[in-house]
């Protein structure tokens, strides 16, 4: 069993043909994690005993000749801001260091029902705030392509685990690019579904009008499998919806006649030359296959990042008010030497000590933007700009089937390279945030590696972002598949 060549379908066939048992498969992953995750640090917590127990159940079903689901016995990893009942869920934060999830997130519940095996919980930027996984309170994750570099973020642990074959697929969350950018940096596939397509129940909230859960996988086929297993309306998440039946799933998409938009505003200064070259080559490939390439304009693009950095921190400052040292999580009342004399002291101390630098920065920024006298100038204005950004896409999608762009302006950067300048770090998400503001689906697929001469550790993966109309996940995934299928 070569983990490197395994996909969900191949693993399923292997189980059916009894080439290996689910237990053997699971144990093989733990062996590889043991060997390699000391360097990469993609996992925060591992659950070997529980996983083996689950694997045995699948094996028993197989041995009794029962029909098993495609996902039965498939080893997976879950980002540590998505709750799995009775397992720790830290969100990468000291404030939730000993928090144990009291219930399953809906996505986890659905995947458990299909029979997946959860190997462990993966590292992330604290509360999913960051683009490099360096903001984790439990140390950074390293990029499997080059250990001196970041895996991207915030779902850096989930992307690195898939890239290093430390699981067969993983779940991430994406508020401004947190699935797509790490998928791009690690050379794997990552899908951010349409806002509302997947239930967020059991996801630790960051910015509720932007957050979505999605899969990180090795192939687009695997991505389709996981997306189809987790999508749908959930009464526990009022913002979730049933996908309209059309959804681009009316038969196979044809590449002939396919119209692909390339926004002129996306090919600007700041993009690394080699990334630009590779993305243009990928676009050329689609043209050669028969697609029509159309230059389009999204004039409000340059306002997306500042708009995001009002809306996301504002919502975060409200969402994170719940970590008060009273109900759960880190609390100074637990300290032996009592330092809190009043209720206010508990709030100030627990939050002051429990949250890390970037989270504190965003809470401050959000609180400022929402405070009396500034609300109209910042938050309300940003919401209006959000409307204009959404309209940009609506207009463009009248002319094209999908929009192509780089996922990130650069390949993976060095650990520590951008930690001293928050703004520099934010620019890593310049092509991904608009998609969250407009609530659209988008996928990042690997389109090769940079030439190894540029980097001592070898070539670095580059990702192509394919953006679709609302609820047309199936269509963008079909388009993504054409890249490899020829």
């Amino acid at each position, binding site marked *: 069993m070569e983990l490197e060549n395994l996909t969900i379908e191949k693993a399923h066939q292997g189980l059916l043909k009894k080439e290996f048992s689910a237990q053997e498969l699971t144990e093989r992953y733990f062996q590889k994690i043991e060997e390699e995750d000391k360097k990469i640090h993609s996992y925060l917590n591992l659950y070997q005993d529980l996983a083996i127990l689950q694997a045995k159940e699948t094996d028993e079903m197989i041995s009794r000749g029962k029909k098993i689901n495609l996902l039965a016995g498939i080893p997976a990893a879950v980002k540590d801001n998505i709750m799995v009942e009775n397992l720790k869920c830290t969100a990468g934060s000291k404030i939730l260091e000993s928090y*144990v999830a*009291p*219930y399953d997130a809906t996505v986890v519940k659905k995947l458990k029902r299909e029979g997946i095996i959860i190997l462990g919980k993966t590292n992330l930027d604290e509360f999913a705030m960051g683009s490099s996984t360096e903001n984790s309170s439990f140390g950074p994750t390293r990029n499997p392509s080059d250990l001196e570099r970041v895996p991207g973020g915030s779902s850096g642990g989930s992307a690195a685990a898939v890239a290093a074959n430390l699981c067969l697929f993983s779940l991430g969350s994406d508020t401004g690019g947190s699935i797509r950018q790490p998928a791009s940096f690690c050379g794997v596939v990552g899908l951010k579904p*349409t*806002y*509302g397509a997947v239930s967020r129940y059991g996801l630790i909230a960051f910015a509720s*009008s932007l957050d979505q859960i999605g899969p990180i996988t090795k192939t687009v086929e695997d991505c389709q499998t996981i997306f189809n297993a987790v999508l749908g309306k959930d009464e526990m998440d*009022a*913002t979730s*919806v049933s996908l309209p039946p059309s959804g681009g799933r009316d038969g196979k998409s044809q590449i002939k006649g396919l119209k692909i938009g390339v926004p002129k505003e996306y090919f600007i200064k700041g993009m690394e030359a080699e990334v630009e070259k590779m993305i243009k080559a990928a676009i050329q490939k689609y043209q050669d296959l028969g697609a029509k390439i159309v230059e389009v304009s999204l004039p*409000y693009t*340059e*306002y997306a990042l*500042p*708009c995001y*950095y*009002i809306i996301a921190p504002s919502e975060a*400052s409200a969402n994170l*008010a719940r970590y*008060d040292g*009273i*109900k*759960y*999580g880190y*609390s100074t*009342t*637990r300290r032996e030497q009592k330092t*809190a*004399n*009043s*209720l*206010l*002291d*508990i*709030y*100030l101390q627990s*939050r*002051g000590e429990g*949250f890390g630098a970037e989270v*504190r*920065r965003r809470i*401050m*920024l959000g*609180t*400022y933007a929402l405070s009396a006298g500034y609300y109209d100038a*910042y938050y*309300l*204005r*940003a919401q*209006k*700009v*959000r*409307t204009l950004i*959404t309209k940009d896409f609506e207009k463009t999608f009248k002319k094209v089937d999908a929009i192509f762009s780089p996922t990130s302006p650069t390949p993976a950067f060095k650990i520590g390279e951008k930690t001293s300048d*928050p*703004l520099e770090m934010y620019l890593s998400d310049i092509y991904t945030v608009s998609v969250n503001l*407009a*609530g*659209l689906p988008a996928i990042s697929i690997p389109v090769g590696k940079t030439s190894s001469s540029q980097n001592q550790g070898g070539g670095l993966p580059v990702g192509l972002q394919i953006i679709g109309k*609302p609820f047309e996940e199936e269509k963008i995934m079909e388009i993504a598949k054409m890249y490899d299928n020829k």
Partner: protein
Amino acid sequence: MISKEEVRHIAKLARLGINQEEEKFSKELSLILDYIEKLKEVDVKNVKPTSYSGKIENITRKDTEAQKSEKTSKLLELFPDRKKRFLKTKQIF
């Protein structure tokens, strides 16, 4: 420019303890806010604000009595301090 005084005020609103970090926050927040100032260039007259993507309104459910579940006891166990089924905290008034 965010003054140190403003930093202290925001931290208080956010219930966030800061330890002699006024200077740091003042510098960082000012930089980010300068960048965000860019939004002022946009003409937003007659533009309606978007708070959520998609059309979601008035989602209701039946107002039924909550069932005591296993979940409840798990939530109780997460309290930092409690007395039986009650959350214990410092006095509020």
